[in-house]
């Protein structure tokens, strides 16, 4: 890679998440709360989180093949991963998103 590794984090965070929600339904709000918590806890400053309300942008649902709600898509790092549900099963979420969950607790403590 021609770019220096130091230049990447501020401009292009390693993690990019898109969360597709349906308004303020309980599942959607829970999912939003969960992902925010995970990101802040495990990936502070290393992530971008976009929230898309498919009620307002229904064409996005078709474009991104959204069936279930809420759906979280990890666009970066590749490969793309999809999670459906309110993200309350944290162990699975961390495993699927490839976040080393041993690291943050140590940094906190």
């Amino acid at each position: 890679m021609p770019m220096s590794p130091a230049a990447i984090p501020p401009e292009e965070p390693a993690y990019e998440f898109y969360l597709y929600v349906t308004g303020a339904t309980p599942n959607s709000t829970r999912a939003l709360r969960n992902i925010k918590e995970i990101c802040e806890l495990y990936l502070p400053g290393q992530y971008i989180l976009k929230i898309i309300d498919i009620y307002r942008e229904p064409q996005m649902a078709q474009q991104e093949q959204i069936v279930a709600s809420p759906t979280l898509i990890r666009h970066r790092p590749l490969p793309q991963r999809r999670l459906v549900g309110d993200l309350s099963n944290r162990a699975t979420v961390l495993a699927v998103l490839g976040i080393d969950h041993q690291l943050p607790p140590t940094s906190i403590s």
Partner: protein
Amino acid sequence: MQDAPLSPATLHQLPKAPTGIDGLDEITEGGLPLGRPTLVCGSAGCGKTLLAIEFLVRGIRDYNEPGVLMTFEETADELAANVASLGFDLRQMQADKQLRLDHVHIDRSEIEETGEYDLDGLFIRLGYAIDTIGAKRVVLDTIEALFSGFSNEAVLRSEIRRLFRWLKDKGVTTIITAERGEGTLTRQGLEEYVSDCVILLDNRVIDQITTRRLRIVKYRGSTHGTNEYPYLISEDGISVLPVTSLKLEHTVSDDIISSGVPGLDEMFTRRGWYRGSSVLITGTAGTAKTTLAAAFALETCRRGERCLYFAFEESPAQLIRNMRSVGMDLQPYLDQGLLRIEAARPTLNGLERHLVTLHRTVAQFKPHAVVIDPISNLVSVGSLNEVRSMLTRMIDFLKVSNITALFTALISTHDDRMDRTEEGVSSLVDTWVSVRDLEGIGERNRGLSILKARGMSHSNQVREFLVTENGIQLLDVIIGPAGIITGAGRLTQRIQEEAQRAVQQHEAARRDRDLERKRRVLEATIANLRTEFETVEEELRRISHEEQTRETSLHESRSALAKGLSADYLAAKPNTRP
């Protein structure tokens, strides 16, 4: 209920959305329930998707109802390619904003479940698609694919139930397709959720021939045909062939057309059979059924009308060669395009396919007459019942189109299986001509008789006929002491008659000569008598003359005496008197 009795106005029929699919609207008496979901289930390869797409496409084309197709299995491109062969241009319809395709891609391996979820994404997509084009029709092609994508069945089931409810509330007419399960209509029991209309498609192979059948399992709030109806996937889409949809209401023609055999025409009081009627020619092997059929075809072409000839036994070339040998040249009409010969082995296709071929060829060629030679061969393809129902449909179809139909059928005296076919068909046809062997001592002759002719009286005679170089010739009836005489018997009879006639002529000549002789004798006698008479007459005339002379002289002498003659003269005078 305390309500007032239902008035006719409240008893209106369930509103229906016509599918536009051949025959299906007739079975469902108008179409699918309007604004409600319909489940179409069936095993793999029986045309569920095709039926659903045709419902959409015909809705767009014929009823101006835009449609949404949500597919869970095939991508939009694959689908468009698949149905392009049927003449459905999905891309154009999409461009015209008449159709929206949405491929829902679900892959279990890509999806992780991390808590509670619902299928709002699907609802939103569908709702968005419906609203953007104002769709009236929706197809969900194999929604069961969801079950392979998500593991939480409880959520799925409640969501699918909600989806159907939601579609109903939106007022769109929906088709949901589903794979058939073991012992159940659908693998996932979707029939529990769709309570309005369930259509079952079935694809079965009997004796190596595939027949597809459609049955309406339920149709809430409407009557419907309950039988299994054969259907076909043809070049023009799905075609369901209901037997009972055709009510006997077709108009009839009063025209008479010739059978092509003058002698046969004479046997009907109206000299031919009615246009648009159906004619059956039955006979044992080698009784010139095909020749009779070809004569009819030829006559039709000669009138300048088109004739469609289905040959199930001979190739067109063979048929033409054979008919030329009996003085019937079909080739010119074939070249002119008045005659079309469709030759195929009956076993090439299933019965339904034959029927569809007939329908399609008739639609293209628009013939005035159709010949099927022979129908009995079709028995080799299906069971008797199937053949019968197929022929019923075929005959009805031709009748409705006012096409004169002529069928030949082989019957066998040894095999009553064929006879039953004949029985089955005979009630359907209007005119039934039977040709048979009249087997005598050491020879066979062909005899022809009319068994029935609806709407006109006909000869009751069995006529012998010959297949000559100039076509078929019916011979005059010769009635001998023991009934009608044919063949060698006919010849013997003729020779005997001729001998008898010679004898009679001889006798007459002899009598004439006799008479002549007698006349001459008579004339001679008359001449004799006349001569005799003349002699006598002359004699009498001479005597009378003498008498007169004497009388005169006597008178003179008396006068002289009176004037004073001598006494002695006077005395002497009396002595002179005799």
